[in-house]
Structures are given as structure tokens and as C-alpha cells.
């Protein structure tokens, strides 16, 4: 087990190195650099631009900039934000709790929807419930979250006045209830998309499992149907779905970019949007590398979890 983990993480190192070079090249080749934003102010003159370019080290050759970044990054020095001059690590750390909170809430909600729906659909394939959830899932996967988010705001915040339209807290309001109210809409938007996909995976996995001999046998020996489905089949069907959930979770952590922006949620996603608009290379590099690392780690975690759930899968 420990050997497996060590090997997988070592294998990831060259991959991450290649990703870092590629990402560095890509973000530097996007038109308009961190100084472009200064240009629209007429009182910023060419000599100002030149001075700022040197101050930010952007006048050096690209490979030299990359090397300097890499050397510092592996030592844990992520540099300073090009836009507000604060350490990149600090800018990221202060955004992590909001993102974790949103992602955790949406995963819980998505699982609460997807698992029962997936099971129910698999128990009676092509039944009315299966057909209904299929339609809903297609709708859920196709919903553009920026549009759906705004729609929920109009209904729940403006028309009904039940929930706040956006943000994480009401100033001076505080309290758990206020927090949950702010969480409700963005978590729902994220959860519905995930639930739609996950319920389909679980349905497929459950149908396969329910057709296996041990399930037939369990039924035959008179095990109550609920126990057959929930105790015998579900455990086996959940493995592959869990792997997908883990990878999706990594993607969510690295930025529910659109949803966070629409709901002014102060997490990593809105930090990414802001950094991208301002071409804040230091913050962009750190966020993209963290995302890559998260995806690698969650993949390893997903494999491990799958193996723990299913003894047929061995860790090698």
C-alpha cells in the first residue's frame, strides 16, 4: 500500500514538470500581458510601462522567467501577485475555505440526489422513474450554469425574497442560518450538474451489478429486496462511481469558475477569473499547478478507495 502510493506519486513528478512548462508557455502566449491593463490610462506613458516591465521581471527571456519561477516554486516560494503585490500563497490560502465549503456542500447535495435517483432508476430500468430521471439528467448536464445561476437569483432572491442572491455572508447578519442561505443557491447549481452525471453513472453500474449471479442468488435465497439492492449490489456498484466523484471533486476544488463568479463567491474560482482577466501570471501559475497536483492526488486517492471497496482490485 505504502509502496503503491510512493510509486504513484513519484510517477507524477515528471508529469507535473511537463504540465508546468506547458502551462507557463500557454499563459504567456495569451495576448496581452499583466501590463496591458495599464495601457487604457492615458497618463501611463511608455516609460512607465518599461519601468513596470523591468520591475516585474517581464523583460527577461521566457526560459529564464520559467526557470526562476520553477526554482522558487519547488522551494515553496510562489512569488508575489502581479496585481496586488501580496504573496501568492496568502492570496490562495484566504480563498480556500470558501471553495472547500462550497464544494463540500455541493458534493453532499449531489450525492444525496444522485445515489437514490441512480438506484431507483436501475431497479426498474426503462420504468417511469428511470425515464423521468434520464430527462432530468440530460437537462441538468446541459444547463449552462451562468444562466441557471442568474435564473435562481431572480426567482429566489428577487421574486420570492427567500434567499440572498450572492455573496458568502450578510454583513452583520452572521450565524449558521445566514451562511446556509448564502450557500444554498451556488451549491444547488453545482450539485445539479454533478448529480445529473453521477446518477447516470450509478444507474449504469447498478444495472450491471444487479444482473450478476450473486444478486440473483441473494434474491433466490429470499434476502429482502431492499437489502439485495442496498447491501449487496450497491456496495459493488459504488466503486467505479466513487472514482468519478473523486476526480470531479478535484476539478471542483480547482475552481467552480463560472458558478463562483455568478454568485460572487469568494473562492478559488473567482480568484482565477480575476487573475486571468488581469493576466496575473504568478497567481495563475500557482492555481493551475495546484489544480494539476489536486487532480493527480485525487486520482491516486480514487484508485486507492476503489481497491479498498473491492478486493478484486489489487494495488500494484
Amino acid at each position, binding site marked *: 500500500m505504502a509502496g503503491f502510493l510512493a510509486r504513484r506519486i513519484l510517477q507524477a513528478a515528471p508529469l507535473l514538470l511537463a504540465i508546468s512548462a506547458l502551462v507557463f508557455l500557454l499563459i504567456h502566449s495569451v*495576448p*496581452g500581458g499583466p501590463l*496591458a*491593463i495599464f*495601457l*487604457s490610462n*492615458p*497618463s*501611463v*506613458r*511608455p516609460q*512607465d*510601462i518599461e*519601468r513596470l516591465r523591468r520591475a516585474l521581471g517581464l523583460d527577461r527571456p521566457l526560459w529564464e522567467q520559467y526557470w526562476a519561477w520553477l526554482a522558487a516554486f519547488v522551494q515553496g516560494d510562489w512569488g508575489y501577485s502581479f496585481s*496586488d*503585490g501580496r504573496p501568492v500563497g496568502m*492570496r490562495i490560502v484566504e480563498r480556500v475555505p*470558501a471553495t472547500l465549503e462550497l464544494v463540500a456542500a455541493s458534493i*453532499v*447535495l449531489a450525492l*444525496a440526489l444522485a445515489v*437514490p435517483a441512480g*438506484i*431507483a432508476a436501475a431497479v*426498474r430500468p426503462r420504468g417511469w*422513474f428511470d425515464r423521468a430521471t434520464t430527462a432530468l439528467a440530460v437537462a441538468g448536464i446541459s444547463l449552462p450554469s451562468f444562466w441557471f445561476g*442568474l435564473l435562481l*437569483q*431572480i426567482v429566489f432572491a*428577487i421574486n420570492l*425574497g*427567500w*434567499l*440572498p*442572491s*450572492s*455573496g458568502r*455572508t450578510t*454583513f452583520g447578519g452572521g450565524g449558521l442560518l445566514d451562511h446556509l*442561505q448564502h450557500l*444554498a443557491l451556488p*451549491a444547488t447549481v453545482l450539485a445539479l450538474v454533478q448529480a445529473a452525471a453521477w446518477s447516470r453513472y450509478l444507474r449504469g453500474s447498478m444495472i450491471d451489478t444487479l444482473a450478476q449471479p450473486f444478486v440473483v*442468488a*441473494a*434474491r*433466490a*435465497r429470499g434476502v*429482502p*429486496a431492499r437489502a439485495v*439492492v442496498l*447491501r*449487496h449490489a450497491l456496495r459493488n456498484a459504488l466503486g467505479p462511481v466513487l472514482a468519478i466523484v473523486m476526480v470531479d471533486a478535484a476539478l471542483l476544488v480547482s475552481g467552480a469558475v463560472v458558478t463562483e*463568479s*455568478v454568485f*460572487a463567491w469568494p473562492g478559488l474560482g*473567482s*480568484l482565477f477569473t*480575476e487573475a486571468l*482577466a488581469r493576466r496575473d501570471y504568478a497567481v495563475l501559475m500557482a492555481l493551475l499547478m495546484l489544480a494539476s497536483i489536486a487532480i493527480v492526488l485525487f486520482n491516486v486517492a480514487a484508485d486507492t478507495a476503489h481497491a479498498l471497496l473491492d478486493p*478484486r482490485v489489487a494495488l500494484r
Partner: protein
Amino acid sequence: MNASPHVYHQLSAFRTGDITREAGNTNRRLEEQKTRRTLSQRVQEKEKDKPFDLLIFCSSALALIVLVVAPACVRRSAGNAPSNDLLIVGYDREPDTLNRFSTHILEDIQTCVVEGLTTTDEQMKVVPLLAAQMPTLENGGVKLRPDGGMDVVWRLRTGVKWHDGTPLTSADIKFTVDAINGPNYNPESTDGFDRIASVDTPDPLTAVVHYREIYAPYDIQFIRGMLPKHVLEGRDIDRAQDYNRNPLGTGPYRVAEWKAGEYILLERVADYWRGAEYPHIRRLMFRFVANTNTRINQLKSGEVHVVALVPWDKLREIAGMPSIVVHKTPGNAYEHVTLNERQVPAFRDVRVRRALLRALDRESFTRTILDGLAPVAHGPIQPVSWAYTDAIARYPFDPAEARKLLDGAGWKPGPNGIRERDGKPLAFTLITQAGFAVRENIAQAIERQLRDVGVDVRVELHDGTAISSLWFEGRFDAMLHWWQMPADPELTTFFAADRTPPAGRNINYYKNDELTRLLYASDRTVDREERKRLLHRAQAIVAEEVPELPLYSITRLDAIPATLQHFKGNPTNTGIFWNVHEWVVR
């Protein structure tokens, strides 16, 4: 998988028994089969007994209710109404820094905290703030030196203290100039400061600024305020996070809290220099809501009270709300089409440029797309400026005249209706920033109307950062955009022949020696009347020559609570908070 071996074991035992019985009696075997059938039937019946579908459906519905609807059961008191205790501003972005000299976005939040020697009022007039009076030639505050330089004497208002109680003195003015011109600080711009040779401080309330040359916009040199010497002396200002995140100022408010990604909260100071009654509003909150639709939704739901710079296409959405007033300020900027003469040879012919302007029905843009909000502009200086003149050439919509001009310039209609000369079509690409509905519509209207006179236009949309680098490198044919114009009517950087990028913003690449001479002369004229005369002449030349196509003046829309009084607005990038100390909610 631990359940499976157990199941298989049971199953095999059952089969063994089956076979034994089979050996005994065929009837019994048939009976057994019957039993097995009924067994499987029973299983199915059991399944029907346990209606999974419903059970699971109910539990998922329950999960939804618990997680989403339950917290909502308490109906919210539709946000906090705006009050003299708390006014919430929906702000389109989080500032990079609150240091006014370092930031590259609007200084709305900073103006509440850090005050300049001067500010601009709602008429765009430069008025004294921390200065006791405006230095001018007449009152002896500005002296032209025989060596071609000039001296400006700034007298500070008495009794003004930094928020920490330290008196504001002329030493702070000197420190600011030295820091900005020094090697250890990287402000956004050193414009104007780099023309200052030195600053003398004969007494704590007097600073004499020695310019190497005559500098007309001296009056807004210290509009961004001063850096406090006693806090920043000897420090790396770029990394002085204590100051940059929470600047020491003299204004009506100080920063109470900056919650990253969420808001900045300002709190009134106890002994503001204007008197203890100011400011009237205790706390101002700037909430960062980058998404425009969300910001408008927050305004509608009452979660924010003020939204500055409302996009024009959102006006109708909020115009009917009784709790909101939309304040309209004629702006200092103008939307126009830049014609890059370096890239498109056809633009070098003044007949073509005039024809393009004649072909555009700008009145119809104003009536339709702009919803009557933005009047047609005829030149780079807008009516709000003291330097404006309307005694210039104008080009009303006249497509027949446009066609005649193009014919005269040798551009004849080709087989597909597009004009050609020497086998080359009259065609160009019009770039503009993506994401502005109004601008995208205007671009399409231009495309259509120029097509009517035989000019082929292709519209390309780019994101804001990408478009900046395109124009800075001159890699475009034509561009639809506006500049943020400062309060001073300087046009040199936009039209002087030697100010093409990277030396300036003459991205028309237009060259006219007389205009260049006039513009430089006006920059070096402090006498207001003389400068006005020079700028009127410059505007007449620009109107005659049409180096760019002026479309309409920008109107600033700011949504404020109907109960807010003494809001005045501001046409410049000084922003609406310049008189925030007077604001009061009734």
C-alpha cells in the same frame, strides 16, 4: 464483496438438496419447480411490497428540502434598507491596492480615505481640497521663470491631520514627489512628477514645486493626495502592505476591514477636518460583485444600495424601481472609431475618412441602441469641458454625399457592391471589446451602414486585455472604443504626430504638423484663455481632418437609493465619492 461467498454457499447447498430430491420422485421435482417459481414470484411480490421508487424519490426530495429549502423557510427581511448607519455599494471589482499612486483601477474607495490637494467637482472644475486655494498666475501661486520653468506654490489648509493625529505638512508633499521620482518605488505613472526638479518647504504649510518646464495640468498634479512621510520614509513602498491595504489618509473615512474577495468596509473618522457633523453616513461598504447581472440582481433584491457605472442596456431593468434613482451625468469620454492609417492606406485619404463619417447615422444610434442616453459627439473634447467648442465642422448622416466622396477618391463599386481601387477592395476589420452588449450592437450597425455605401467591414471581438496589446502594437485596422479622459483637456498624447505607440496613444497614426505644434503649445500654456484659444483651433483641425470617427459622448449612470441626498455625481475618473462627506439618507 464479502457477502458473495456466503451467497454462493447457500446456493450450492440448495442445489445439492434439489438433486437428491430429483433422484427420488419426478412429481416431487415438478412440485419443487412450482415451489421455485413461487419463490421467485414471492421475491417479485416482495419488491412490489417495498416500493423502492417512491421510497427513494421521497428520500431524495427530503434531502433537497433539508439542504436547500429549510434554511430558506425564514423569509428574509429584503436586505438592509440604506441608512445613515450603513450604505452598501455593489462594486464591479476588488481593488488591487488602496495606494492611490499604485492602483490601476478607479480610485472610488481611495477617495473616501485619501484626499488630494485638489479634486474635480460635478462640473469637472478643479477645486481645492486640502489646498487652501488654487494657485494661479493671477494670485501669484504660479510663477513662470525666465529659464522656461515654473514654480507652483501650494498652501495647505490649516488644522488638517492624518488619521493617526500627525499634522499634514508640506514635508509630505516633498516626500511624495521624491518617492515617486525615486528608484525604490514603482507607481502606476510618474506623469508630471518627472518634470519636477525639486520641492522646497519654506514652512510646514507651504510647498514650492519647481517644474523644469511649463506644465499646464499642474492643478491636478496632487489630485491623488500625498504619501505620509512619517509612515513610509525609508521603506519599500511596493511591499508596504500595512499602508497599501489600509492607507493613512485625511479623508472622512478610514478602512475598517478588507475581506478578500468579499468587501471593504469603511468607517467614519471621529474628527474630520470639515467638522464633527461630517460625514453623515457611519459606514460605507464596497461589496465586490464582478458579474454585472448579479450586481443588478443584488440592487433589485436590496442587498446593495448603490451601483456605479450601470451599463446602459440595464437601465430599463431598474428604471421602474421606486427605491432607486438613476443619476445621469454627462461624461467626459467619447466613443469613437480609431482609423489606423499605418495599417490601412485608404484611411490616409481625408475624403475616405469624411465619407465613412457621413455614412454613419449616429442620430439613429443614439435613438435606438443607446436609448437616448448618449448624445452624438463631434470631437474629442466634450461639452462638459471648459475647453469645448461647437464652432467646428460637422458631418450629418448623408450616404449620397459619402458615395460621392468615395467615387471622387477613386473607389468605384465592384461586382459584389464593394468598392475597389486598383483591384483592391475597400475593406477593413473593426475590433472591439467583447462583453459590452451596447458596443457589440454599435459595431454591427457600423458594419451594416458602411456596407450600404460599399465599404466591407468585418467585426472582431477581443477580451479587454488582449485588445490593449493589439492597439499598443498597432496591429489592427480600426477599433471601436473610448479612452478614460482625465479632467485636463490635453489631447497631445492622442493626436501629436510624434506620439504614436509606444510614445503615446496616437493610434490613428495621424500626422499633422500644425496640429502637433498647437497641442504642444497648449500643454505649455498656463494662461487659461490662451490655452482655450489653442485648443479651440486644435479641435477645428481635428473636425476638418477627421483622423477618427467620433460617435457619441458617454453618459455616466449611477444607481443610488431614492432616499440618498446631496449625491452630485462626477464626469471624470475622480468618481462619485468625491463629495461623500455630504451624503445623507433621509
